[in-house]
């Protein structure tokens, strides 16, 4: 009886023992930093000595700061420039790659994924050269068609589209993979049935493929929303947040606080970002969830 009790208690404890390593790591690298940051967000601390309690001062400063809202606006505009375009391109590419009759499918798959695996900093440096106002290849092509030089990286009008193009070029391959895996889970008989009913290609795409891919599309949108609002490396390397802060994204603005050792404001900034991005994600999940 005693041995049965011991065995029973071991069985009850065993699952907790198995998850313990994860819990320890989760506490150390997720929960602790979160609590530390929350505490920090109510202080003025520059990294040394005691932190000075300032209450809601950091949040108040950010919420009344034109630069904070400007950085959110920049990320918002980039979202509008990137997500719809990227989804359309990725969806069409995924449909194309899913076509069994497509020749050299392997080549096209590699062509889509290569930008994604290229080092971002190297790509960004290429962007700086290619989009140079006076001597870049892009303007050289435009000049050949009689179009004058465009200040891709030096004007507030074109700096965001140039960055958006970089982001789309770099990450669309990853979205193609996500959508392709979703496509391949759609029952082929549904397409056959639609074809028998007289639905053309576009109709099948709109009425069969897109509805059945809603969950996958939703996942891709949430993922890329997070990526856009965290975007840092692209503006850091290509435009340094300029010109005139026009490409200072939410992530870049947060970075500025940290590099200037304004850690309390940076912590408050990160929490505000978490709330905003979470709210956006919930909106998209609600909008894009399947209607079943």
């Amino acid at each position: 009886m005693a041995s049965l009790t011991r065995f029973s208690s071991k069985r009850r404890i065993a699952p907790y023992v198995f998850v313990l390593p994860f819990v320890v790591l989760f506490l150390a690298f997720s929960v602790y930093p979160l609590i530390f940051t929350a505490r920090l967000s109510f202080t003025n601390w520059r990294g040394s000595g005691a932190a000075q309690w300032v209450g809601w001062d950091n949040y108040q400063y950010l919420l009344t700061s034109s630069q904070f809202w400007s950085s959110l606006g920049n990320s918002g505009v980039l979202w509008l420039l990137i997500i719809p375009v990227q989804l359309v391109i990725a969806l069409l590419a995924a449909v194309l790659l899913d076509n069994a009759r497509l020749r050299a499918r392997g080549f096209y798959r590699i062509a889509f994924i290569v930008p994604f695996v290229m080092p971002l900093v190297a790509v960004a440096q290429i962007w700086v050269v290619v989009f140079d106002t006076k001597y870049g290849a892009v303007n050289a092509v435009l000049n050949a068609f009689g179009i004058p030089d465009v200040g891709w990286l030096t004007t507030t009008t074109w700096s965001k589209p140039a960055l958006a193009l970089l982001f789309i070029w770099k990450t669309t391959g990853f979205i193609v993979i996500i959508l392709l895996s979703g496509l391949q889970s759609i029952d082929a008989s549904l397409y056959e049935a639609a074809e028998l009913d007289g639905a053309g290609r576009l109709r099948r795409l709109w009425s069969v493929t897109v509805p059945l891919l809603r969950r996958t599309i939703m996942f891709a949108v949430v993922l890329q929303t997070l990526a856009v609002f965290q975007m840092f490396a692209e503006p850091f390397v290509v435009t340094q947040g300029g010109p005139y802060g026009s490409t200072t994204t939410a992530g870049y603005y947060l970075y500025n606080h940290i590099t200037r050792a304004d850690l309390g404001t940076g912590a408050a900034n990160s929490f505000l970002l978490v709330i905003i991005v979470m709210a956006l994600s919930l909106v998209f999940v609600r909008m894009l969830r399947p209607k079943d």
Partner: protein
Amino acid sequence: MNIQRSTSRTGLASASLAISLALVLSACGPDVTSPSEQPSTGAPEAGESAAPSTDPNMLQAPTEASPSGEITIWDRSGDLYEVFDGAIAAFNERYPDITVHHEAVDIDAKLQNTLITGADVPDGVFLDDAKVAGFADFLWNTADVLAPYADDIAQQKLDVNSSSGGIYGVPFDSNPGLLWYNATALESAGVDATTIQTYDDLLDAARAYQDAVPGSAPIHLEQSPFLGQLQLEMYASQLGTSIADADGNLRLDSPEYRQILGFLDTVNSEGLGTRAEYLSPSDIPELENGNQVFYPWAIWFSFAPQQLLTETLGDWRAMPLPAWNDGGARSGAMGGSSFVLPRDGANSELAWLFYEFLMFDPAGYAAVWGPNDIYPDGLNTSIPSYGPAADPQDALFAPVDALGGQDLWLVATDAAAEIPGSVPTPTWWAGAVDYLGNDLQRMFDGDLTPDEVISNSTSDIQVNLVDRK
């Protein structure tokens, strides 16, 4: 009922555990003081002098006859890393028992976190002058160990390394601003650059060149907000001023800055300026094709004629900057670096010996600036900030072939001697680029007047940086 009671007990236990955990974890991290208490940083407070006998952060030099130990030195990767690496052998001839672990590190990315966490802190670090004051809380006060040399160190370098009464860096180089000019192109256009004494003379020379070479825009206007602000401070340095005074109070609203911005606005509005980022793909062709022939910049522009400007090799020369007023200073400081010694370093006092050797010992500074494996003719992108090392009559680096054999050492050391004294760089200097650096660019775009640059930047910097220190 038993199941419900069990479930609610489990929920209560989980909630209690979560709250307890949160309280325990929140106790970790820095001490938090109330607004009425001043957080202690260890460094002397503003306005206080650090008395050597009482300042716990004052570095003392080792007293042993043959100090021993290991030191970790951080430098940025690149040519300077190689130069310093090559000098270690000479250091070890003097101090054979000190082992130097020389590491190439992205200092801008790593230093702050390393100092905050206190993990694997190096003993010595190469750091931009503009950043020294910002890290003073973590550094040794080097006033005592520098005392024997202080009278011979360029005053401007001592000033920028000073903070709250202490000196927190070992001055490395002097970066005098010079006027770089394409002598060949100017001579072809009938313009004698050597007659330029003031910025008014420079404007006249640029106009004459533009008349001779229609479509040219002879003077460089910097398009990078950061470098534009750095160049602006070079001009200000000539006039003995800077963005903030010794107490950290803004002084942009001044006749000096109005004069400088007025000059830049004139260059821009008269079409005399080529606007491009320093040595970018847009800048270099304009230097090579004779469109841009005047480049007011620090000595480190010498890298361009030697490495980048292949089509105009031998055409470029350097001269002291024009003066703002007749008889005024013919140079100002643009950038510069020093070595700092973190208090958490295990053997920072030994790292002091390393820097003392490199900067103040003839064998050391000859190893840095003299001929070496990296630069057979010597390192000529800066000069020492230590007077005996920067003797105009005793050049450490050779005349520069790419400058037509010009004795750049003589030009630079003479110019550096004219740089007025300065004040510590405020900790928020880099943050000011978002305001002053950008507003300067807006002025070049024609969106702001010089007065608007001053008023907008003053207001933004005061509210967003100075008041939030």
